[in-house]
């Protein structure tokens, strides 16, 4: 059986634009949530968001003309992918100094987005309305489409293997990682650049999410994204990208790559119930976690960390708590669970990848990030959410769950890497 490991990670997030600063923020419970400065909020009830700050695309794009022709979501994705590739040392093309260490046809790209290039879509729509069809940019379609982050990354790194830009709303990048894991396990690729990106901190997206009752209207950054707290009242919009290099174990070992964690399970299910509300009995979420747990062969005495989807909406956090109890029974109370959305906000299509990266902290640093801003306990959410302070906790397994509009549920299982373990 081919084993699958994580050998590189890259981050553009509201709590840091590289892996070290991101890790540092999570361990110290630092929040990226603040009043919105990206646009004028005087006409909306939504006042806070988790914005990416100090992002400079010129740091990543050698050809400056490309910046104008790429939506922000692609810039975030490429920046995180470049970080992850550099971190991993993987190369499908000779770069002059270093020769390739991966067959281009065995390197894939599974990078999705919940929405795609919304800023571009909006700007060009305005042009169409005000100045007519002849003024719509020739770059409009290739800038906006939801697969173009994956396409751009494939071109940049010479990845000629399988490409699959997943679109499952907020479950997008957990699905991307899960599908990448399956593809490598089943010998369709040796390495895959996987994750997700989102850049929808725009008046249009905020209005849309607000009007479908998804967002917190709190103007207090410390009481807006408060997962599992009784007073939670909606999610806080985040943005950014998370990219992981997923690689077959012997391929990684042969080139002496560092290994953050092993991926050992994946569940992917649907509620078949409602476009925005989770199933009240959490059937789909329960099933996806069960699938990942079963495939990972988690034992009775193994220590578990769960990075929850934990959006801070009434419905999600209650349903997710129920799902964890349905899967683990009484054992659910012994599991360390946290929602890093309390710090990063909801990064939508990037959330799953960012949270998979957050989940590796228990393996690399022996610590699990907290759910910050937690004050008022909710009897319906009565598990151990690692409130307010990071905790020293060396888990054997980490689960990361993501639940998306449309009723998509995804869960991946990560495991502390042990080179000596016999392949089952």
């Amino acid at each position, binding site marked *: 059986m081919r084993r699958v490991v994580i050998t590189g990670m890259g981050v553009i997030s509201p709590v840091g634009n590289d892996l070290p600063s991101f890790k540092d923020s999570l361990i110290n419970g630092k929040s990226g949530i603040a009043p919105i400065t990206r646009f004028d909020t005087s006409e909306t009830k939504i006042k806070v968001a988790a914005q990416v700050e100090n992002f400079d695309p010129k740091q990543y794009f050698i050809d*400056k*003309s490309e*910046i*104008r022709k790429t939506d922000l979501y692609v810039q975030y994705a490429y920046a995180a992918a470049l970080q992850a590739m550099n971190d991993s040392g993987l190369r499908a093309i000779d770069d002059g100094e270093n020769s390739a260490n991966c067959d281009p046809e065995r390197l894939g790209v599974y990078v999705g987005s919940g929405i795609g290039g919304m800023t571009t879509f909006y700007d060009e729509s305005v042009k169409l309305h005000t100045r007519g069809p*002849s003024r719509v*940019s*020739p*770059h409009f379609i290739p800038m906006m489409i939801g697969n173009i982050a994956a396409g751009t990354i494939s071109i940049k790194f010479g990845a000629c293997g399988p490409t699959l830009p997943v679109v499952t709303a907020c479950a997008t990048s957990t699905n991307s990682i899960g599908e990448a894991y399956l593809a490598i396990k089943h010998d369709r690729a040796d390495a895959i650049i996987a994750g997700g990106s989102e850049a929808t901190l725009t008046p249009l997206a905020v209005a849309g999410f607000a009007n479908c009752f998804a967002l917190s209207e709190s103007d207090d950054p410390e009481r807006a994204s408060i997962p599992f707290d009784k007073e939670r009242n909606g999610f806080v919009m985040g943005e950014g990208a998370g990219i992981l290099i997923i690689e077959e174990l012997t391929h990684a070992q042969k080139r002496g790559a560092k290994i953050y964690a092993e991926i050992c399970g994946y569940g992917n299910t649907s509620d078949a119930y409602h476009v925005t509300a989770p199933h009240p009995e959490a059937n789909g979420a329960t099933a996806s976690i069960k699938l990942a747990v079963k495939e990972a062969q988690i034992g009775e005495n193994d220590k578990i960390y769960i990075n929850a989807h934990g959006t801070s909406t009434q419905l999600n956090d209650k349903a997710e708590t129920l799902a964890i109890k349905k899967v683990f029974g009484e054992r659910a109370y012994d599991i360390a669970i946290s929602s890093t959305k309390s710090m990063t906000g909801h990064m939508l299509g990037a959330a799953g990848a960012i949270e998979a990266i957050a989940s590796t902290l228990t393996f690399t640093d022996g610590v699990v990030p907290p759910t910050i801003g937690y004050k008022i306990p909710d009897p319906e959410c009565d598990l151990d959410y690692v409130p307010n302070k990071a905790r020293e906790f060396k888990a054997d397994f980490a689960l990361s769950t993501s639940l998306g509009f449309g009723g998509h549920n995804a869960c991946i299982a990560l495991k502390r890497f042990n080179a000596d373990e016999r392949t089952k």
Partner: protein
Amino acid sequence: MVYEKVLNLITDLKGEEDDSITKETLLTELNLDSLDIAELIMNIEDEFNTTVDERESLKSIGDVVEFIEKKIG
């Protein structure tokens, strides 16, 4: 004047100045792809408030400048 404005539009597209460009430079030598050229023509139309309807006959930067100067008289 027209020439300088066209050069500025090219600089905007390329994201940086290119000192090697002269009136003799062909549009195909600008290191811009077909979508970029389409955008350049669109930007020229906006800048000079005109329409460029004989795109095929414009080979060099000089051709473009001459065409605009005739159009805007």
